[in-house]
């Protein structure tokens, strides 16, 4: 029997990843002890992953505005204008911890999540990329992780039907206990066909769509913000399983529904699905939300409200619907054989209320849940930078040929065909440049223009000097987009760092971010979306600072695109640049 009113002990608080002072903040905010469901909701809303409590202060310093920026950070994905009434919508997101625990499913659900972020906004995804960092090639876990992650990235994207047109793979001992899986997706929509999460109107139906809710990943969002240690085995059952088949139908159903004018607001369910999505929709719209959990489609028996509010089951969406179109909306979802349930209503009381078996199990101030989340100015120290190498520190090469072969065969230099040949890079028929070149390029359907994109970061550089490394990642992405003939417009980032509670790691974060910001300003290359993944640390060893950048640019005429291959015998080869 589920007990909502159990005693909230310090142990329970700490198991929810909440610090004692954070719990005091909750008490002050609601003026009483929270129920168990409420504690779960706070833990989901206030963990690092959802609240950005360690990084918010610094993210605000990034340049996010530009002539072509339609929507910057804050929505599911960033939006840029690409002319003719078209917009490109894109974002990158990490699934590092889940992929380390279960590489195949971790990677699939990462790809699934980022695709949903894009089509939630009304865009059909037309390109995907991924940036993968693994431990040393001969580390006992590496082979298993690489095989699982690559198969998972492909397994989801290929089935969903989005071309994967680029990415990166690297190996380094500092990822031995913590691989990185960053997934990027980009979609296309019309400028007047963008959908947002802000709920509007009182008394409107809140509708649950997609797959049923199970106990998948209960506590997962909290896990993604906790450092790993050897108790990791115990956290295993929280693995979510991705279902690209359901997601593909969800995509088609959502896009079909959006055309009918029935959608007032829409939000995908990612980490801590129902909680974060409902709170975000309400808070943004200055509205309360009441959810009736007995109407939520459930896959498992006897689910508690606590489990339902924290479930991370994939392939689900929440929408606020235009009431007159409810029947029409339902028909679309039935056609695609997806669950559809009116499970809540918008209210004018600014409360987030959860009803279960006729009882109210949570009643919280909706805006404060997000706005009053703790925000930290974590102490940081200037990170150690590596001293420049002396000119004679590296012995001269005697046998250039042998050195070249070694270089080309090095794990970080060798051909990536074994990875990208497992990804469908052609589906949709618009791929102009597939993996193997400087940037991936896709044509915008029905036009002669195309979008170029490239994922870049060199964590070795960031480790040696976070500021310069951050700058370099932006510059490299810019160069790659330019190299195919694209005009860089904006970028998304995925900031993967170690434990922010350690001043040295926090210093790496701060300095890298400053470097990124400086490069973005210098290049007039704004950041329109992104994701932060902290606590990438195992047994006290942090990863290399890894701020992945994906820059996006426009080619007005795809027939003018440049490619990497030499074209003819006797052509002259020029070296340009500094």
């Amino acid at each position, binding site marked *: 029997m589920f007990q909502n009113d159990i005693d909230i002990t310090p142990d329970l608080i700490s198991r929810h990843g909440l610090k004692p002072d954070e719990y005091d903040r909750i008490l002050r905010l609601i003026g009483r002890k929270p129920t168990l469901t409420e504690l779960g909701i706070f833990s989901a809303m206030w963990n690092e992953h959802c609240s950005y409590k360690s990084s918010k202060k610094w993210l605000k310093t990034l340049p996010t505005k530009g002539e072509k920026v339609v929507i910057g950070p804050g929505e599911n994905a960033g939006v840029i204008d690409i002319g003719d009434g078209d917009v490109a919508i894109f974002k990158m997101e990490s699934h590092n911890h889940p992929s380390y625990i279960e590489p195949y499913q971790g990677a699939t659900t990462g790809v699934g999540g980022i695709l949903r972020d894009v089509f939630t906004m009304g865009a059909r995804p037309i390109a995907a990329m991924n940036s993968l960092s693994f431990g040393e090639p001969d580390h006992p876990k590496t082979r298993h992780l690489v095989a699982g992650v690559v*198969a998972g990235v*492909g*397994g989801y994207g*290929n*089935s*969903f*039907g989005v071309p994967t047109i680029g990415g990166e793979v690297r190996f380094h001992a500092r990822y031995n206990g913590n691989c990185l899986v960053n997934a990027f997706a980009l979609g296309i929509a019309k400028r007047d066909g963008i959908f947002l999460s802000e709920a509007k109107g009182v008394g409107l139906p809140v509708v649950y769509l997609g797959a049923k809710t199970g106990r998948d990943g209960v506590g997962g969002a909290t896990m993604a913000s906790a450092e790993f240690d050897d108790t990791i085995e115990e956290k295993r059952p929280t693995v979510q399983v991705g*279902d*690209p*088949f*359901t997601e*593909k*139908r969800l995509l088609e159903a959502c896009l079909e529904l959006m055309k009918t004018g029935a959608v007032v607001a829409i939000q995908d369910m990612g980490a801590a699905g129902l909680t974060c999505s409902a709170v975000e929709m309400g808070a943004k719209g200055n509205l309360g939300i009441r959810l009736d959990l007995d109407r939520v489609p459930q896959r498992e028996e006897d689910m508690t409200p606590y489990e339902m509010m924290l479930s991370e089951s994939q392939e689900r969406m929440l929408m606020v619907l235009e009431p007159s179109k409810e029947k029409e909306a339902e028909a679309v979802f039935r056609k*695609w*054989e997806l669950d559809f349930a009116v499970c809540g209503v918008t209210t004018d009381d600014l409360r987030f209320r959860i009803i279960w078996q006729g009882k109210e199990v949570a009643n919280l101030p909706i805006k404060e849940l997000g706005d009053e989340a703790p925000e930290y100015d974590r102490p940081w120290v200037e990170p150690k930078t590596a001293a420049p190498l002396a000119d004679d520190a590296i012995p001269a090469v005697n046998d250039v040929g042998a050195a070249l072969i070694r270089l080309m065969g090095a794990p970080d230099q060798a051909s990536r*065909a074994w990875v*990208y*040949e*497992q*990804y*469908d*890079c*052609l*589906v*949709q*028929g*618009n*791929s*102009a440049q597939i993996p193997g070149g400087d940037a991936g390029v896709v*044509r915008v359907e029905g036009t002669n223009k195309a979008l170029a994109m490239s994922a870049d970061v060199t964590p070795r550089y960031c480790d040696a000097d976070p500021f310069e490394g951050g700058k370099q990642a932006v510059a490299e992405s810019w160069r790659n987009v330019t190299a195919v003939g694209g005009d860089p417009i904006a970028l998304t980032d995925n900031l993967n760092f170690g434990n922010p509670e350690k001043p040295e790691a926090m210093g790496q974060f701060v300095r890298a971010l400053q470097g990124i910001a400086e490069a973005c300003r210098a290049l007039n290359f704004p950041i329109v979306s992104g994701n932060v993944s902290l606590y990438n640390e195992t047994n006290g060893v942090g990863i290399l600072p890894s701020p992945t950048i994906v820059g996006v640019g426009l080619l007005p005429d*795809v*027939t003018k695109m440049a490619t990497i291959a030499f074209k003819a015998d006797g052509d002259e080869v020029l070296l340009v640049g500094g």
Partner: protein
Amino acid sequence: MRSAVVLFPGSNRDHDMVKALHSVTGIKPTVVWHQDATLPDVDLIVLPGGFSYGDYLRCGAIAARSPAMLDVARKAKAGVRVLGVCNGFQILTEAGLLPGALMRNAHLRFVCKEVKLEVTNNDTDFTRAYAKGQVIRCPVAHHDGNYFADPETLARLEGDGRVAFRYAEGTNPNGSINDIAGILNEAGNVLGMMPHPENLIEALHGGFDGRGLFESVATSLAA
């Protein structure tokens, strides 16, 4: 040439196929939902690529039992040309319209790359625009393209010239028996193939080798 593309839940190269047919024949194909029990009267029915029903149970198995497929079978029997590409090929074998089965790729991985195809038989409605023995370029993108048939079936396919395409020059990407990439039914009006001719039909794709297949069907109808 009038054509129809059958859309199953999980199809994902339907759009590519529609574009290819439109581009080559000048007429936009009709898209038919898999629940429709009757297909329109057309000259060519296409089952597109993708992951119908997520490839769950067996690739193509669940789609092969959908209402539209009963009509596809009827129309195939009546001589209407039917083309199944990739998942479409898997559906045709599962529906019994073509013999054999498509198994998991020998290396067990999804493979997306360009291969070489030998036009083994150019005396068919689908291959007339090519020369016999011509080697064309064509991309593949699949997880289960490893064609298998028992020895008698195989002997019959080979003996009757029903192997339309073979992977050439050592490019067999999946372990397919006899390097088989595409086969015909006995009457020659149903073709199933793993490679994607619809993805090599314009300059953007880096070549035009896939057009011949659609041109062949169009001209065979005109004749």
